[in-house]
């Protein structure tokens, strides 16, 4: 009951920015949002992400306690980095915990689970054709795309926001000392994206990354939905898209090996781009711009293909 109320509230709230649209369009968006954010798979993906964030929080709190104990016991000789162990290093994006790494490894897959398959499913079961009698195709696709964008984005953004809130309970607030990375106390160095923000305004750094992840995750969801016309099942669509990201990661790794003789470098895959620590050695940030643009192009082009699929039905 509560989740229904939540999704209803969410759909109404998110429908506000589209008030300039017609009544049918607004109703369709609200309907799709309710279905996307109230479905079982959205809850499964969110619960999975929240569990990993909570594990990360527990490990971070334990780490702080251990290092705090060392610093108290041997503080005169060495502080073990306790001065730099502030809240931002307990955020899931920068805390380097195994649970955080699993979170970012599985994220490109879990983003697709909630609502990406729904378009193809509706084409196959005839619901899309039924909807065609009430609204134009463009209205239907716009609503569907918006719902997929929001649901996929929320699966990425909500855990990051929750982790930011929890990080204040795991370690004290403060600004990181830029000299900290010289003693390997800080994971963020000058070669990382947005490193300036990390040192000057860590909360803003976490929020900017959350917004970036929300947009990138949403675009990834809509882009994959564009390919759903050629998929035979939800599992195949999600796993193929995930394996595609792994192939991109593998190819980029090969080019970095061959061209720059290094294992890290500009990444174009979501494993690298969604994680603040994955964006190492990216001072140019080429991948951070190229990948969202590429996904946007695919997301815009999906409408024609999807429309063709419905017309066939």
């Amino acid at each position, binding site marked *: 009951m509560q989740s229904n109320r939540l999704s209803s509230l969410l759909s109404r709230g998110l429908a506000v920015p589209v008030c300039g649209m017609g009544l049918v369009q607004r109703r369709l968006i609200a309907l799709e949002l309710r279905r996307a954010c109230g479905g079982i798979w959205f809850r499964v993906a969110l619960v*999975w992400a929240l569990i990993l964030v909570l594990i990360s929080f527990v*490990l971070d709190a*334990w*780490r702080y306690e*251990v*290092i705090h104990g060392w610093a108290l016991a041997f503080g005169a000789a060495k502080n073990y980095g306790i001065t730099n162990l502030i809240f931002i*290093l307990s955020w899931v994006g920068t*805390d*380097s*915990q*195994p649970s955080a*790494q*699993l979170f970012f*490894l*599985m994220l490109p*897959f*879990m983003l697709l*689970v909630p609502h990406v398959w729904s378009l193809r499913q509706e084409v196959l079961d005839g619901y899309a054709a039924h909807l065609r009698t009430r609204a134009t195709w463009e209205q239907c696709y716009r609503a569907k795309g918006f719902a997929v964008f929001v649901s996929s984005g929320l699966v990425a953004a909500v855990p990051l926001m929750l982790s930011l809130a929890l990080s204040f309970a795991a370690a004290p607030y403060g600004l990181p000392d830029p000299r900290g990375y010289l003693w390997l106390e800080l*994971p963020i160095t000058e070669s990382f994206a947005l490193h300036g923000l990390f040192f000057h305004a860590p909360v803003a750094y976490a929020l900017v990354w959350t917004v970036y992840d929300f947009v990138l995750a949403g675009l990834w969801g809509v882009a994959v939905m564009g390919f759903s016309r050629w998929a035979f*099942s*939800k*599992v*195949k669509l*999600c*796993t193929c898209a995930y*394996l595609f990201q*792994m*192939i991109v*990661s*593998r190819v980029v*790794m*090969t080019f970095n*090996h*061959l061209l720059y*003789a290094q*294992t*890290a470098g500009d990444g174009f895959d979501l*494993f690298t781009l969604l994680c603040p620590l994955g964006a190492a050695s990216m001072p140019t940030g080429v991948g951070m711009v190229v990948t969202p643009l590429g996904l946007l192009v695919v997301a815009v082009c999906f409408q024609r293909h999807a429309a063709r699929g419905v017309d066939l039905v």
Partner: protein
Amino acid sequence: MRRLAHLVICDLRVGLASMGWVLIGIFALGLFSAAELDGILRVLKGADLLAAPGVRTFGGYLAYALAGARPITFEVVATRGELPSLPMGWLLVVLLIAYVTLAFPRCSIEGSGQLLVLKAGGRWCWWLAKCLWVVACVLLGWLSFLVGLSLWTCLARADLSLSVSTVVGDVAFGGGVALDGPASVGSLMAALVPVSAGLSLLQLAVCLVLGSTAGFATTVSLLFASALADAPWLAGGYLMAVRSAGIATGGLSLSGALVCSILHAALGAGVGGMLFSRSDLIRRRRA
């Protein structure tokens, strides 16, 4: 027995036909990995080294493609925040082979496929046929990967031996791991099919009980845990060259790999079969 054989043949004909392109992809990945190693050797060590005998071998290509990562202790990770980079190349190969076996069993139980369970004469017969199909798929998957590596070995005129040269070991495992003596991928090769089959059978059980999404997520999580930790029950470690007994001193032995794969297979086929034989197929159909 006759029914079982008939079911297995039907599954192989229908299931493998739909997975043919994945097997081609795995073959291409093998070819690509071997070619990549040659490219890296040329860039890092110079072209002269490529012509030297015994440097480039089939074993070296396999060790590079399935290099993996060394384990790291939990305390180091949790307290110092030091995480090794994930071996994405290794993960991709193992996941592609797991993907071959992912979708078909679940699809074949839906719709009219349920009639086959009736025609099979019992659920255990149907289940065993699917287990055999999974093992056959894993065998074919690894075979296509190894054929890809062998083809490049022949094309590049490298040795077809299983030994790994020091130069290749340096590139594949990084500076942190040095090969002490003669290294061979023999035990790694022998462990590939049984360990992978055990993992896939476990995935099959999760797929049919909890759904394919949960099955795939379980496999990724298990492989991720294997990449970080070094527990004998984590099967992924046995598929890494850097942890193999033939390469690293005190590495994971073939007997350990076989025990682990048998345990995984027993868990997947046995417990999965029991749960499947008690599951409500009619309700699943309605859902």
